[in-house]
């Protein structure tokens, strides 16, 4: 980009290919070749450390507040950089402590901070006036002689800032004021590196003399005077001019030079030359300049690469008027304009939390499971039906995995008994009748981790055997609920069934099966639990007629408890019928049932309606439900993955995280889990083809029949009624057999 803008510029390549120099020029190539006899300076590049912005933020919040008055700050520059680095003026966290120490061997530079309260004020600030004000101060110090006593005034800077602490955007613009001669500075003797200009003896004498000068002062000496013979080198502070140079015949000045270019001095020389011209210009024709560079690499010090040259001092037109000045830094596009840095990632606590969470998860990948596909997990949208003991624990474990999208559906309010078992709620949430669980859970998740994208729906899920046809209002409410649930299931990738009744799981099971969404189901007994994934039906397009026949064949064989493996079920010797069931043939929560879901809360005591389970069970089952989901997601076939069974525990696991079981059944009394797998049941009241077919064709009309009817409707539809009659007949046979013994 910038190359296009500067196509007229001439590039010179230094020894190092890394250091490309651009001669900022509007002149053509030939003209700038002629201009090589004029001295050019490498301007400062501003360099800010992260700590500076942190400190500015603190100052703004605690000290400055709305105070816009100029503040004194301190930066530094260094003359020991390796070749290729830009000439920098650095501001770090210590910039606000003007009297504090400067890093060793670095030269302090004092500046003025103008921190505005608004972006408009930042824009409206008269930059030209700021520069002229600063230039005038430098000029005054030169004229008064104050600059001789304290030459650091020659190398000052201005920093204009605006800190947008809502967005953590920082606007800034540096200025390194330099007074200008009207004409260019003619080079009398081309720059050469020190070891070509001076003897080794002189160089070591120079180093010794500089260290002497350095020790006398309190810190680095930015400017100094120099006299040398074949054997000796003498240095003196700038203020000693009159006693040091008695004849003004040959004058050499040294400057602590942060530039690394072999043909150019850095910015600090500019104002020094103006000072020389102002005070001694009339007596001096040429000045020799030593750009003192002092580098230590791997413990060995070198000043040989310092640069020395001679220039002719131009006349200052009128020594009473402040010369023109320059110095505002160009931005990264090479234009005259401010810079902006967005630090939200390292300063916004919310962003920090997000990156820390992600980083912690990545550690798992880097160190333990290199093939772990975290993105798949993090980007999974999870719908949690039920925000009780299971829902709370599932949500927390999902957050642990960095899952961002978590949606809750629940119609209950938080009661006094909940907070001790449901880790997203507190005592306060129970007061005044209790908050809605779905919305309270969202609030708490956002408090725990602001990066979460969570929504709560306070709604009921219509259930079989729980009639909705009391009135037109209840019927249309049920219809809206169904539509909402259908919409939510469509919008999510994984549906968690975490309710406390069996029948409330029926509708989402049907909808999710129809929409081919992965379902993870967790249910608790007193000291037992089941965590399972529902079989994921093949999509209607990919399901071939023969495949359908196969599955119904194997299903019927399973349902009739036939001892001969049927159809496609692989018959490996020694393996059971239930090994290697592919995901699309796995059963759902209702497949093992021989009764349709109905009103299970009827005829129960209050005790039985509440969750009566060992308190640790929900945490175990909730965590397992999430871990099962993650394992499924890591499998290349996802929900279609072949079910792992307990027998697979010794085999090579199918994913980087291990097995992908169909079910985990836990028995807390024995502290034991088993991994059964079961086939889809062709008479299943929830996922059998006939139910799905009716749902897909008739929609709410079919569903409302289910809600409003007793068990028998679904049982008749699926053929369970017939099955019951058959099994009852068989039982009678069994009984009679028994009795006969």
């Amino acid at each position, binding site marked *: 980009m910038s190359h296009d803008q500067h196509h007229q510029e001439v590039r010179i390549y230094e020894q190092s290919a890394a250091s490309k120099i651009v001669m900022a*020029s509007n002149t053509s190539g030939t003209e700038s070749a002629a201009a090589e006899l004029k001295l050019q300076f490498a301007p400062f590049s501003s360099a800010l450390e992260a700590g500076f912005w942190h400190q500015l933020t603190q100052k703004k919040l605690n000290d400055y507040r709305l105070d816009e008055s100029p503040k004194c700050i301190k930066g530094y520059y260094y003359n020991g950089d390796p070749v290729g680095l*830009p000439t920098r003026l650095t501001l770090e966290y210590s910039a606000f402590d003007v009297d504090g120490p400067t890093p060793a061997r670095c030269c302090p530079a004092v500046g003025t901070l103008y921190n505005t309260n608004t972006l408009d004020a930042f824009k409206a600030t008269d930059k030209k006036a700021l520069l002229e004000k600063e230039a005038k101060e430098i000029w005054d110090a030169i004229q008064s002689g104050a600059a001789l006593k304290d030459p650091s005034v020659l190398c000052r800077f201005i920093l204009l800032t605006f800190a947008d602490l809502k967005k953590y955007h920082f*606007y800034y613009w540096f200025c390194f004021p330099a007074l*200008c001669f009207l004409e260019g500075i003619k080079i009398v003797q081309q720059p050469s590196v020190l070891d070509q200009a001076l003897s080794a003896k002189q160089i070591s004498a120079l180093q010794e003399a500089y260290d002497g000068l350095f020790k006398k002062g309190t810190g680095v000496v930015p400017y100094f005077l120099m006299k040398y013979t074949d054997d000796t080198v003498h240095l003196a502070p700038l203020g000693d001019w009159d006693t040091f140079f008695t004849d003004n015949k040959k004058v050499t000045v040294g400057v602590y030079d942060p530039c690394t270019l072999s043909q150019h001095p850095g910015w600090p020389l500019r104002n020094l030359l103006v000072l020389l011209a102002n005070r001694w210009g009339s007596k001096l024709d040429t000045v020799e300049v030593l750009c003192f560079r002092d580098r230590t690499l791997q413990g060995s010090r070198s000043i040989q690469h310092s640069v020395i040259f001679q220039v002719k001092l131009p006349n200052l037109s009128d020594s009473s008027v402040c010369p023109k000045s320059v110095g505002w830094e*160009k931005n990264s596009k090479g234009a005259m304009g401010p810079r902006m840095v967005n630090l939200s990632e390292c300063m916004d606590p919310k962003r920090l939390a997000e990156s820390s969470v992600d980083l912690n998860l990545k550690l798992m990948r880097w160190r333990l499971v290199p093939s772990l596909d975290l993105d798949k997990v993090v980007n999974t949208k999870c719908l949690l039906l039920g925000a009780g003991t299971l829902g709370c624990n599932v949500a927390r474990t999902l957050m642990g995995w960095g899952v961002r999208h978590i949606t809750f559906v629940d119609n209950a309010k938080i009661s006094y008994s909940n907070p001790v078992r449901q880790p997203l709620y507190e005592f306060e949430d129970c007061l005044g009748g209790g908050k809605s669980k779905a919305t309270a859970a969202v609030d708490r998740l956002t408090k725990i981790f602001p990066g979460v994208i969570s929504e709560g729906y306070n709604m009921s899920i219509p259930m079989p055997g729980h009639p909705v046809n009391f009135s037109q209002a209840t019927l249309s409410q049920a219809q809206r609920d169904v539509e909402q649930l259908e919409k939510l299931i469509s919008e999510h990738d994984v549906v968690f069934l975490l309710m406390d009744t069996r029948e409330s799981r029926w509708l989402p099971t049907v909808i999710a099966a129809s929409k081919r969404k992965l379902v993870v189901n967790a249910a608790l007994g007193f000291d037992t639990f089941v965590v399972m994934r529902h079989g994921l039906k093949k999509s209607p397009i990919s399901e071939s007629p023969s495949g359908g026949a196969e599955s119904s064949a194997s299903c019927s064989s399973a349902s009739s408890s036939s001892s001969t493996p049927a159809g496609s079920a692989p018959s490996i010797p020694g393996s059971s019928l239930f090994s290697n069931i592919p995901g699309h043939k796995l059963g759902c929560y209702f497949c093992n049932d021989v009764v349709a879901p109905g009103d299970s809360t009827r005829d129960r005591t209050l005790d039985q309606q509440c969750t009566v389970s060992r308190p640790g069970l929900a945490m175990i089952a909730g965590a397992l439900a999430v871990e099962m989901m993650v394992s499924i997601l890591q499998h290349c076939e996802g929900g279609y993955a072949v079910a792992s069974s307990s027998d697979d525990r010794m085999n090579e696991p199918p994913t980087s995280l291990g097995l992908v079981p169909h079910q985990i059944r836990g028995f807390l009394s024995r502290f034991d889990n088993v991994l059964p797998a079961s086939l889809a049941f062709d008479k299943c009241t929830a996922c059998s083809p006939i139910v799905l077919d009716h749902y897909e064709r008739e929609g709410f009309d079919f569903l409302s029949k289910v809600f409003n009817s007793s068990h028998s409707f679904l049982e008749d539809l699926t053929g369970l009624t017939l099955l019951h009659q058959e099994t009852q007949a068989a039982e009678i046979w069994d009984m009679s057999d028994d009795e006969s013994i």
Partner: protein
Amino acid sequence: MSSCVLDKETFRHCCQLLLQLSEQLGDCWCWVPVQDSQDGYLRKTALRLVTIDSRPFGDQAESSSELGPHNSCLSGPDVQQNDQDQSALIGSANGDIIRGDIEDQDNKDNRDGDDGEDRICRMCEGSSQVLQYEYHILFSCSYRAPVLYFRVCTLEGRSLSLEEVWGSIHPNFRLCLQTSPFTMVTQQEHPLLGQAFFMLHPCRTEDFMRPLLQAAQDQNRPVNYVLTWLSMVGPVVGLDVSLKYSTQF
């Protein structure tokens, strides 16, 4: 074995020795005291010209072999993209107003034809970028070991993400790092500054220091725990410790 862990007193002593050597070698470690406490940390900053490889960390093992010599033209680094976006923002949203009121005096001189001279030479930012590395050595009471904190920022003061930091490490070296026991890098708040830093986790420090310390003890050789440790973990994050720290003196 007691000498495998570090107590605070020894830590400070080791740091002091390291500082003396640093001073003599012209290295730039310094001790930063923390106000109103005896605590403090060693600090060093370094600048580096690097080419950012923006690919995610996990991809590096597979692809590092196909990369040629260092800094072969890896294009499209995230960092630079960001910078460009940001400056573009200024240019479009605010730039016009701000740009208008001051002029590039050095160049204006040229336009005015005062004397047709340009007085500025400018470093051109090529495909590589200057990064500021900041290293802190702190003492961890819970691990009784030194801990290396670091962050890397651009010249604008924007800290790099860990991916970007990894991207700045030579691909060949990255491969070694992946298998090294020191690369437990996490993001953590600096315990003394409260700012976000990366940290080399000290959970295995004792493990890899033990044989060294034991050998030194067997041979009756004095060992600067902090220096020895630093020479092992430093290179992981681009912090080289000169051999002269142990050979020169």
